[in-house]
């Protein structure tokens, strides 16, 4: 089912054409990355899809959808604490109090922002604000998630958490994101739309390759490797093992290795 269709759409703001001759069709369940240089029209395109912008010329059709939106820059001047903000915003979207608490707790844990819950948002760091920006959109349990440069200002650990979360959502939600980050494109989006000067210059599909990490660890005794039969492992020398794990499983495997008394020698991305 198509949730968005645009035919020869252009958008003019204050006399400037920010989008030109856009023809695009988005189906339910797709994950799409919109890439392009700064000022190429990525954010405008996402706003057109979401309904913030209406076309100046051309026709569009939008299905009625529950949309979650993550802006490129989270608002600077929100006076509420993170906790108050998330509760208020979830209630605005019509979520029940009991459900809200559980959901907020789980996202707060995932993004490790528990210690800042009572901090006014305007005093939080850019990264924390970005995390709150992502949480408010996910709390809505949207049918379509629009993310404008979602990894801006986030550290590597949080970036991989965001990717993991989006991968989980991608199973039953349409995701459209703008990005400069190759990691998002290669791990999440099979469809890539490239824009330049407000025009779509390419619309292609790629195969998603699963990114792997290589962990080299010293094991106290070889027998514990039996605990790790579910991963690709190789004993490279006495008491030293090398394991290949999917990027998204790295945290889990590292935890198991450490619990078994192993010491991590090296962790690197497989190229």
């Amino acid at each position, binding site marked *: 089912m198509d949730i968005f269709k645009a035919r020869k759409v252009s958008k003019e703001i204050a006399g400037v054409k920010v989008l030109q001759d856009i023809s695009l069709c988005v189906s339910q369940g797709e994950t799409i990355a919109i890439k392009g240089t700064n000022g190429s029209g990525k954010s405008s395109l996402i706003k057109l899809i979401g309904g*913030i912008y*209406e076309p100046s010329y051309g026709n569009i059709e939008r299905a009625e959808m*529950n949309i979650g939106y993550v*802006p490129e820059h989270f*608002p600077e001047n*929100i006076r*509420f604490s993170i906790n108050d903000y998330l509760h208020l915003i979830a209630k*605005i979207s019509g979520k029940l109090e009991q459900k809200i608490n559980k959901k907020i707790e789980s996202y707060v844990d995932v993004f490790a922002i528990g210690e800042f819950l009572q901090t006014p948002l305007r005093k939080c760091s850019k990264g924390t604000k970005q995390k709150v920006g992502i949480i408010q959109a996910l709390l*809505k349990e949207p049918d379509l998630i629009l993310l404008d440069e979602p990894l801006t200002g986030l550290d590597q650990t949080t970036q991989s958490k965001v990717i993991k979360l989006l991968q989980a959502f991608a199973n039953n939600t349409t995701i459209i994101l703008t990005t400069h980050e190759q990691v998002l494109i290669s791990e999440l989006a099979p469809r890539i739309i490239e824009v330049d000067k407000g025009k779509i210059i390419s619309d292609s599909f790629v195969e998603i390759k699963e990114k792997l990490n290589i962990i080299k660890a010293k094991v106290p005794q070889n027998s514990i490797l039996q605990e790790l039969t579910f991963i690709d492992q190789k004993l490279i020398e006495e008491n030293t093992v090398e394991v290949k794990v999917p990027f998204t499983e790295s945290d889990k495997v590292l935890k198991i290795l450490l619990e078994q008394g192993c010491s991590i020698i090296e962790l690197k991305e497989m190229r």
Partner: protein
Amino acid sequence: MSSFVHYQIKSYIQSLKFIPPASLFLLWIFILYTYDNAPILSSYGASSIAIYLTITWISMTVFSLEEEQEKYILFFQLGRKEKYLIGKWLSIIVISLPLHAFAIFYPIMTDSFKGSLSLPLILISVSSHVIFSFFGILIGTLFSATKWGTKKYSWLSAVLVIVLSISAKSLAELASIANWFLWIFPPVFTVIKHMEEGDEILFLESLFTDSIFVLLYLIISFALLIILFKRKES
């Protein structure tokens, strides 16, 4: 919608933007009732004008509470842009309630009137405060939530419209040609004329027709504002 109104009011209180208009309004009321034996209807007429200015001011500050990104997030959380506008209007109405209460009850509690209050007098007075606050919301919205509001001189334009609407009768007397464009401004005189002739309400045909006119003016204006707001936010 009640959650959005809650969000707005909480945000407005924390911004402290209510302090200047509310303080000025309270001061106005205190000064208005400095002396006892005030005539009922014309005093309430004066406080209605104060409400008009104050609510215009409050409306403009309520509409400027959020920056663009926060507004977009709220659009998506609410699901429709119209809900945002209507939620703002409801928030302004809730914010204005204590001011209405103060304007109506302060002179009663301080026994400032020379006559005694009757139910019709109270009804007329409350209605005039409500109507003037709607006029204020109208002007405030026009110059802060439509394309008129993005102009550099939105505050100045709002003040100009208020002054023109209040002085419409005098302007029309000076030059009858002014009637050709003055009808577009909030019909302040249509309301106030019923409050300036002593404390006796004359239930004339004109009161009924004027009420219908004001009601129609408000309905059409608010409908137009929704269209103008949607045009701006597209």
